[in-house]
């Protein structure tokens, strides 16, 4: 046992090396964000004298935008789950005539570039007054999260034993009652996975943010970063601080909800 351990050690070292290269940009983002001030043009390799003034600036400039992102992402989670969960159940368990057609539509929907949807939605939103609005962005962001959520949830719900649902139905529960009291509690984990990814997709959305908002009233944080990038950048520390703050949900989910994220990454890796 001990010998195999010793023989495996080079792999661990090599693995850490690979990961260090892959995650270097993330390190560099955090490192730069901690080095603001006049000497910040050439950031040093380690934040030997860390200061948080870049974060102060980022928060003062981007707090409202982050609030917008949070509202859009939260709204998208609720909207996506409300639409996707019953649909996933129907696709998994009911024998309806058009099931395969709906599945085909879902697969094709994931191939449609966001810019195509944005192109058409812009004109429709203009007429409906949905430009520069949080509901408008929530509805648009659903185009990424709803197909994903349906596919993830359906894959799980297929494995629910029919006897479980039958038992409730025999007791006289209708489809919705059985869905609510049996299917949802049993599917808790996959619902969490679908919800977390819906949040991340909406939080990271750029295509709809840049096309469906025209004023500064509703501005997700991704657009805040983009406007830094299109301007002439004087100091990178606040830009990196904003990027780091925008990365917080991803890091939190990866650390504290790793098994849900891993399940989603394998079950429906789309982005």
């Amino acid at each position, binding site marked *: 046992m001990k010998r195999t351990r010793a023989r495996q050690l080079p792999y*661990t070292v090599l693995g850490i090396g690979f990961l260090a290269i892959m995650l270097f940009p993330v390190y560099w983002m955090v490192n730069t964000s901690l080095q603001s001030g006049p000497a910040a043009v050439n950031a040093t390799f380690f934040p030997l004298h860390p200061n948080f003034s870049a974060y102060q600036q980022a928060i003062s400039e981007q707090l409202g935008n982050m609030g917008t992102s949070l509202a859009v992402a939260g709204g998208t989670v609720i909207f996506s789950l409300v639409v996707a969960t019953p*649909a996933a159940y129907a696709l998994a368990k009911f024998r309806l005539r058009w099931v395969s057609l709906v*599945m085909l539509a879902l697969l094709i929907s994931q191939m449609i570039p966001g810019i195509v949807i944005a*192109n058409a939605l812009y004109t429709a939103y203009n007429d409906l007054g949905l430009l520069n609005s949080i509901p408008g962005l929530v509805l648009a962001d659903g*185009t990424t999260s709803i197909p994903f959520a349906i596919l993830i949830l359906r894959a799980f719900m*297929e494995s629910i034993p029919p006897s479980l649902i039958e038992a409730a139905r025999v007791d006289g529960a209708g489809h919705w009652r059985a869905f609510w009291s049996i299917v949802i509690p049993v599917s808790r984990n996959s619902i969490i996975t679908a919800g977390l990814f819906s949040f991340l997709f909406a939080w990271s959305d750029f295509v709809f943010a840049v096309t469906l908002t025209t004023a500064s009233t509703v501005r997700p944080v991704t657009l805040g970063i983009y406007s830094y990038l299109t301007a002439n950048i004087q100091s990178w520390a606040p830009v990196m601080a904003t990027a780091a703050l925008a990365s917080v949900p991803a890091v939190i989910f*990866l650390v504290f909800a790793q098994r849900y994220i891993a399940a989603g990454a394998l079950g429906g*890796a789309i982005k």
Partner: protein
Amino acid sequence: MTAADVTTLGEPSLASRNESPRHRRGLSLDRVAQWTFLAPAVTYIGLFFGYPIVKNVVMSFQDYTTRTFFTGEAPWVGFANYVTVIRSSLFSTTLINTGLFTVGSIIGQFVIGMALALFFKRRFPLSGVLRALLLLPWLLPLIASSAVWKWILDQDSGILNQTLLFLHLTPTAIPWLSSPNVALVSVVLVNIWLGIPFNATLLYGGLQGIPDELYEAASLDGATGWKAFRYVTWPNLRPVVSVVLVLGVVYTLKVLDIILGLTGGGPANATQTLATNSYQQSFVLFSFGTGAAISNILIIISLVFTVVYLRLNRRAIDE
């Protein structure tokens, strides 16, 4: 979406066969109740996928500009938008860029992703944790990653040039994003970085599905190392490989965030793709007609790959 999600396409779900005949009574009412589960999703798909696709086709045959928003007039122009787009000197540039961007990204992501998947297949201390952390670049907002890379690749003070100069690997600072000759390569490299976790994760999942007995049997026949990969791993991984590659192509074709964040399509259109050009036409120049025409061309290219994808899936099921 993976192969597993598609396997039931076109065949009735297994579970639904167990529906007891008792529920067949009052069939129509039951059917209506069942459809209420699907109605919101179907409505949404119709409004947010069906409508945009149709609208996009209609717009591409119209002279649809900012004026349209005030007057409500969008005169029919037939194929004029397509002719303008295809005749423009930019079209061949964007087409070539889209091709190079896609092919370069896919090859890089796939080869490195495969190497990492094979590497992580041998379980060693910490391998699980390292594999989980590898997902991070994939979960970050793309625009945040673009910002970091723009800083790393900065010609004067970016860390990459600083390091290369310090190690005397380059005589002068490389204009990663500001030279038309280098910018596309840089954008491809960043996109490879972004795609590695996706490729590695899916391929690792595929590798896990290959039974160990196959390797044991192969090693008895003297197939180890490269031979084992050639005769055991690759044939068994083929369905997953095709899914990963086709999905990779479709997702790469529509990339917008990374290019807009890093270069904005420049310098001198060196990184302009069909997707960024469609954005530029519609949302910078407000020429929605030509923007729609370009995105329809993009859809057709994506659709070709989608058909390939669905066919490969079918075959994967048949096997």
